[in-house]
């Protein structure tokens, strides 16, 4: 079985209301019961309540698989990067550190990397992933490109990203406002800056 080519995954962060429905639905799944493979991140928690759901972007050149010393991360023929193979994974955390999107997480108890595999058991049968099936604002959308283009007139899908010198194209698309230009930030230059979250954290202890 393979994921039908017509169906694609779209993430629209501007529609996310932070309801955690996707997180709960993900942790319901029997293959990783109790562990959510989706991360609901705050963009800037000090200043805004805006959240972004982070699922695996399924890169064309998956960095996690490139850095895996145990050959545990594989991509199936339909372009879905599968979670680590349990007999092979040595829990070295390379993929956790290398993924530019911060998707893989180490399950230290099981000594196994676990990540989103786009609900392969569901999507390969033509169903929606758990998160997309429950998302009330459809920030997580699973369907055809024509559908998303007719539904989201002011958005356009983007699946090319740049992290420093690394250019990444992905199977999953982000929806961005149609008229905006792509901006590339030099992520490495921000490494020495104090983050706004850190300022708040320090103030808390000074008071």
């Amino acid at each position: 079985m393979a994921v039908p080519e017509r169906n694609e995954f779209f993430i629209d962060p501007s529609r996310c209301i932070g309801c955690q429905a996707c997180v709960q639905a993900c942790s319901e799944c029997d293959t990783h019961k109790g562990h959510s493979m989706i991360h609901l991140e705050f963009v800037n928690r000090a200043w805004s309540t805006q959240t972004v759901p982070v699922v695996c972007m399924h890169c064309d050149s998956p960095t996690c698989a490139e850095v895996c010393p145990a050959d545990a991360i594989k991509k199936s023929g339909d372009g879905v990067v599968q979670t680590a193979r349990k007999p092979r994974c040595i829990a070295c955390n390379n993929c956790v550190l290398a993924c530019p999107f911060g998707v893989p997480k180490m399950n230290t108890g099981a000594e196994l990397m676990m990540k989103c595999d786009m609900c392969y058991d569901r999507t390969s049968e033509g169903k929606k992933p758990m998160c997309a099936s429950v998302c009330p604002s459809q920030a997580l959308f699973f369907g055809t490109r024509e559908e998303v283009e007719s539904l989201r007139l002011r958005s356009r899908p983007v699946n090319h990203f740049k992290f420093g010198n690394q250019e990444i194209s992905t199977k999953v698309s982000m929806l961005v406002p149609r008229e905006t230009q792509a901006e590339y930030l030099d992520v490495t230059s921000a490494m020495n800056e104090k983050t706004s979250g850190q300022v708040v954290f320090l103030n808390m202890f000074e008071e």
Partner: protein
Amino acid sequence: MVDQDRDYLSQAPDGKPHGEQPQWRQDFPVDIPQDNYVSRREFTKFLVLTSAAFTVGQMWIVWENWRRARRGAPPAQKIADLKDLPVGSSLVFHYPTHSEPCLLMRPDENTLLAYGQKCTHLSCAVIPELEKKRLACPCHHGYFSLEEGRPIAGPPRRPLPRITVELRGDEIYATGVELRTV
């Protein structure tokens, strides 16, 4: 050999075509279809090498059997005097080499029995239980019959090697080892 025709799904990070990638990338591809792909040449190589290994193994077994047959029986060795072995007792001796402990038993007046002491399961030392007419291995509760040395209970499947014993006057001699498989 690099197979140019296979369509790769993943791109290498340097963006170069797969034909120019190093050998390790061909050996450990990210894509499952490429990982499962076995070329006819590789499969044939696997078949030839494994059957060659099996053939060599069989020839080695034949060679070892031939060597063992050529060696002949080990020289006779005196174990004990008959008067040192009262009825219903047993003693341990080493035959044919010092590393092979054996048991000599005298269950009744006219019978002398000798077996190798290593259990055929995992080489623990077996203990004679003459009153129960058996040999017991304490490690995994394996039992051998006293008369034949054959397994009667527990994990062992092969009989103990039988040591042929000869009475020369009043002296007991071990004259040979009878290795048995069934």
